[in-house]
């Protein structure tokens, strides 16, 4: 019997496909998310919108809070570690939860090196803005990737940009002559073997979700139609007027992403969405997506 193999790490992400992973800050919110049909929850002290508003250094959440959220639900629980902070990752692994997000939403602990994720038994998800970044994270051991988007804005534009970049670059690789792939690897700053794999299969070797700015059922369905495998919703649910209803509506829209009649039905009378932020009004130093490399 072999535990924590690459197949089981990637496999858990496969089981989350077509689903919605929701940020929660209390056990009560975690239960609301599970009841609404979330496939997993992200246990946090503050959602990205509050991190953005309050400023300061954002760190791993209190292990006691993560453990209490874990006890409150039967679905998988994820938690965030700072980029490069492998001790936060060790602590989260010791709590026996299911996935770590090495996340740009927290303040990076290392401006050069991400965590060597191969060294862990727990699987990792990492953010990316383009294919090269996605493949570098996989080379470091990420078993799942997600777009960075721009967390805590309720504005889907950056998630769209990043998903289109990743998927468009995959299509370009597929069209290349095998002799061109060596240079493509150099340009993408990614390992040749991964570049060749993507060119041959037309897919990433791991599951690819959208994250960062998804606030409505139509946002979730947009990301699914663009071609991601599932969605993370951070601030968009519990910063809205009726979280339980909005959560369920986003779950339904993610399943029926190709059916505008169902998306229309679930979008009716959802109450107030979170107040969004236009990206060009955010001072450059406060953009989260630029963290990580």
């Amino acid at each position, binding site marked *: 019997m*072999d535990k924590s193999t690459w*197949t089981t790490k990637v496999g858990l992400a496969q089981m989350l496909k077509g689903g919605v992973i929701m940020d929660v800050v209390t056990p009560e919110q975690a239960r609301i998310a599970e009841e*609404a049909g979330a496939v997993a929850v992200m246990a946090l002290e503050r959602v990205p919108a509050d991190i953005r508003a309050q400023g300061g250094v954002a760190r791993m959440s209190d292990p006691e809070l993560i453990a209490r959220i874990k006890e409150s639900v039967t679905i998988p629980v994820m938690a965030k570690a700072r980029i490069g902070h492998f001790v936060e990752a060790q602590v989260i692994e010791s709590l026996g939860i299911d996935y770590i997000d090495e996340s740009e939403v927290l303040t990076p602990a290392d401006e050069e090196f991400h965590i060597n994720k191969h060294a862990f038994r727990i699987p990792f998800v990492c953010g990316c803005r383009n294919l090269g970044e996605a493949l570098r994270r996989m080379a470091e051991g990420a078993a799942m990737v997600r777009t960075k988007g721009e967390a805590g804005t309720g504005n889907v534009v950056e998630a769209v940009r990043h998903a289109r970049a990743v998927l468009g670059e995959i299509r370009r690789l597929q069209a290349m002559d095998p002799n061109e792939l060596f240079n493509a690897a150099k340009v993408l700053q990614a390992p040749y073997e991964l570049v060749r794999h993507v060119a041959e299969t037309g897919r990433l070797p791991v599951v690819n979700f959208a994250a960062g700015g998804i606030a409505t059922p139509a946002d979730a369905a947009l990301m699914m139609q663009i071609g991601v495998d599932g969605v993370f919703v951070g601030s968009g649910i519990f910063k809205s007027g009726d979280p339980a209803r909005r959560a369920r509506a986003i779950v339904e829209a993610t*399943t029926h992403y190709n059916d505008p009649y169902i998306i229309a039905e679930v979008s009716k009378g959802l109450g107030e969405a979170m107040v969004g932020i236009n990206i060009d009004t955010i001072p450059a130093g406060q953009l989260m997506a630029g963290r990580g490399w």
Partner: protein
Amino acid sequence: MTVGVLALQGDVREHLVMLRGVGVAVREVRLPRHLDDVDRLIIPGGESTTIGKLLGIYHLIEPIRQRVAAGMPIWGTCAGAILLAKTIADGRSDQPTLGLMDVTARRNAFGSQLESFEVDLAIDGIVAGTHRAVFIRAPLLEQPGADVAVRARLADGAIVAAQQGHILATCFHPELTDDDRVHRYFLTL
């Protein structure tokens, strides 16, 4: 023959790829009317609470029960196995189930993701030799009824595959491997 894969959530694509590989037509099933086009149905791996919730909201539970009662073969992998069971242990108390197989499914029977594993497994009457079985936050099956044939057990005796006539349940994921023998077997039911 057209094989449906319940496509509410989970590793739908892996089942579709496996089925196309063995040369059968496939159909994603999200709404009751989609069942009209299928001769068999697979419930994939995923989160059983999510899939169960969506089965209820989109009124799929009764139509699936009726088709299976009328002889449609059905197979559940992992979350799918949980949804086929008469009784769910360690789940949410309000968790919907299809309740088609006379067995109890114990959810997350091994613990968190850190306990997920692969093992070489004999599957009685389904594969010769062994299958490299992938268990991810997997359930176990308990208290099988008299009509239920146990198809596979772990070394400690725990039941991980069972069959009741044309209803098949596996706690592991053949669709995540290169071994299509369990899919081929399902097509013979």
